[in-house]
């Protein structure tokens, strides 16, 4: 595909944990991300969903090389990031930005909003005093010029998230990883921030990796969706196909667990109730990692790892007995 901006292939990230148990010191490996592959086209949004600990944030951080992947490749505009020298990576970094979940923690409380927004410009050595750029960015995200002189504590959560977005936009990135960007916001405020992301994308044409556990927000904003479970992608495809015809049992259960804001639907809905919690990524189940909670599991699920395969409605899923 020529309009491909980001290509992630067989990405693996293991974290080493040191556990001190009395005299015995053991090393344990957290398999946070295992063999994850996907691509993001120019101007498109990939939604990354899954329960907490499924590896979404780790994928995002590996893409930006905020952490080193254990193995696998990340290609951005056709360049393999792992092969770049420090200086080349620094230059590329301005094209890739990240916005974090917590609008309260991600801004320096001692810096004015204007200074926070222009900081990436200074770090990247962009000449000038940036005052005009800051105003332009504030306007772009729906804030006003006089906000530049104020400090983060004077702003609400939704406004701080906008400041974070303005900062991420300063260097005209081609890709923004949005890690739970609206999770900390009230619903009435969420809607405005989601609209902002959509407007910016249609005006500036950047791509998003939109990480969220809120499936209805992802349905709204994403072109493609990848569902993660315990470090692996279990289903990936066009948003319409995945939501209308989930083929992986986990996707189906996840969608069915989301309560909908309609009492009549809720009373008549067939619900799939999963048992137990997500197992530990230190010792993930053999074969299919979902098998300990799957109502369809058979012996083969413990022995053979299911591979992603194309399903009739077009998406791919990794299951020996896919739903249809």
């Amino acid at each position: 595909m020529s309009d491909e901006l980001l290509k992630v292939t067989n990405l693996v990230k293991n974290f080493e944990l040191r556990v001190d148990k009395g005299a015995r010191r053991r090393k344990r490996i957290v398999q946070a991300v295992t063999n994850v592959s996907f691509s993001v086209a120019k101007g498109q949004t990939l939604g990354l969903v899954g329960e907490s600990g499924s590896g979404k944030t780790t994928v995002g951080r590996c893409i930006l090389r905020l952490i080193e992947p254990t193995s696998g490749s990340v290609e951005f505009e056709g360049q393999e990031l792992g092969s770049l020298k420090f200086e080349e990576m620094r230059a590329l970094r301005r094209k890739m930005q990240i916005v974090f979940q917590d609008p309260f923690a991600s801004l320096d409380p001692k810096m004015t909003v204007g200074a926070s927004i222009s900081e990436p410009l200074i770090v990247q050595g962009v000449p000038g005093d940036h005052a005009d750029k800051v105003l332009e960015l504030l306007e772009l995200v729906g804030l006003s010029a006089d906000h530049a002189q104020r400090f983060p504590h004077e702003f609400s959560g939704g406004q701080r998230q906008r400041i974070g977005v303005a900062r991420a936009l300063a260097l005209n990135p081609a890709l923004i990883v949005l890690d739970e960007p609206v999770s900390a916001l009230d619903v009435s405020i969420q809607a405005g921030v989601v609209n902002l992301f959509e407007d910016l994308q249609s005006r500036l044409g950047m791509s998003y990796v939109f990480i969220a556990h809120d499936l209805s927000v992802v349905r709204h904003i994403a072109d493609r969706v990848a569902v993660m479970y315990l470090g692996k992608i279990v289903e990936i495809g066009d948003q319409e196909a995945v939501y209308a015809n989930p083929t992986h049992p986990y996707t189906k259960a996840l969608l069915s667990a989301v309560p909908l804001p309609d009492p009549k639907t809720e009373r008549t809905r067939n619900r799939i109730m999963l048992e137990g919690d997500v197992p530990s990524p230190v010792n993930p189940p053999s074969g299919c990692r979902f098998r300990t909670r799957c109502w369809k599991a058979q012996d083969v699920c413990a022995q053979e790892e299911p591979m992603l395969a194309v399903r009739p409605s077009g998406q791919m899923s990794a299951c020996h007995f896919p739903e249809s």
Partner: protein
Amino acid sequence: MTEKVLEIRDLHVTFDTPSGPLEAVRGIDLDVEAGELLGVVGESGSGKSVSFLATMGLLPARVRVTGSVLLAGEQLIGASNKYMRSVRGRLLSMIFQDPLSALNPVHRIGDQISEMLQSHQSLSSRDAAKRAMELLDIVGIPQPSDRARQYPHEFSGGMRQRVIIAIAIANNPKVLIADEPTTALDVTVQAQILEVIERVQDRFGTAVVLITHDLGVIARVADRVNVMYAGRNVEQGTIDNLFDHPSHPYTRGLLASLPRPGKQRLKPITGFPPNMVKPPRGCAFHPRCDFAADICKSEMPNLVSYGNLQTACVRARELPKSERFV
């Protein structure tokens, strides 16, 4: 006739802050009926938690609390600490978002449940331990006799919240107040916990007050709902009436802002939540309200019946009927 187990009238709660007095709850009226599940929604800072912390007598003594809270006819506001201690855990229980901080890390799960039982009932240790096991079973913890001997860190987040529920219902309280009990949990685990709460309500006739910001959760489990804004309740009714034709402009805005299948543009509520040190005069929602008129800036609306809802909006009668959003 339904029996009211909790009757809150004109509840006010004021904190002293460096920027002056902050009235977090500004005159709440609310009834909880026996055995019902009442949902309480509102944005962050609207006074949901503070209202029920005041009800439980859990706010520090220097916080000003006025008004009336009757629990099965007994006044709780101004009651002695000793009396409130005898009420908490026996007649009223409250559970919170973070189950780990509510459990004692160095005591076995079974002992923590027994302790709650024995603090309000004269039970032998043996009987208390037996009852603790039954409670673990009721909240859906498999192998209760093994699990009772374990410590909180050996439980997952969802399992811990089940234990907290077991402790909260140990003495069969009249009302269980659950403040965002599933917010920290994954959605598949949330579904399990909601089921446990419904089971408790069904089996013991416990009335439940469920505080949440998630309208989907309300639609799934609540019988009635109370919407809060800036320390006031702005709308109340059964879930069907409220979701079908919300009357208050804030409730309409809230429902309209939710993402729905399809790609229509989202409709946010304009503006931002108020600063509670200096809330807007009159109807606190007026700076964000599409229907605001001059009268809204001077008059603070009270809940009045409109159709089958209770609505606090001076213009409720004049507003166009709302569409059904779902």
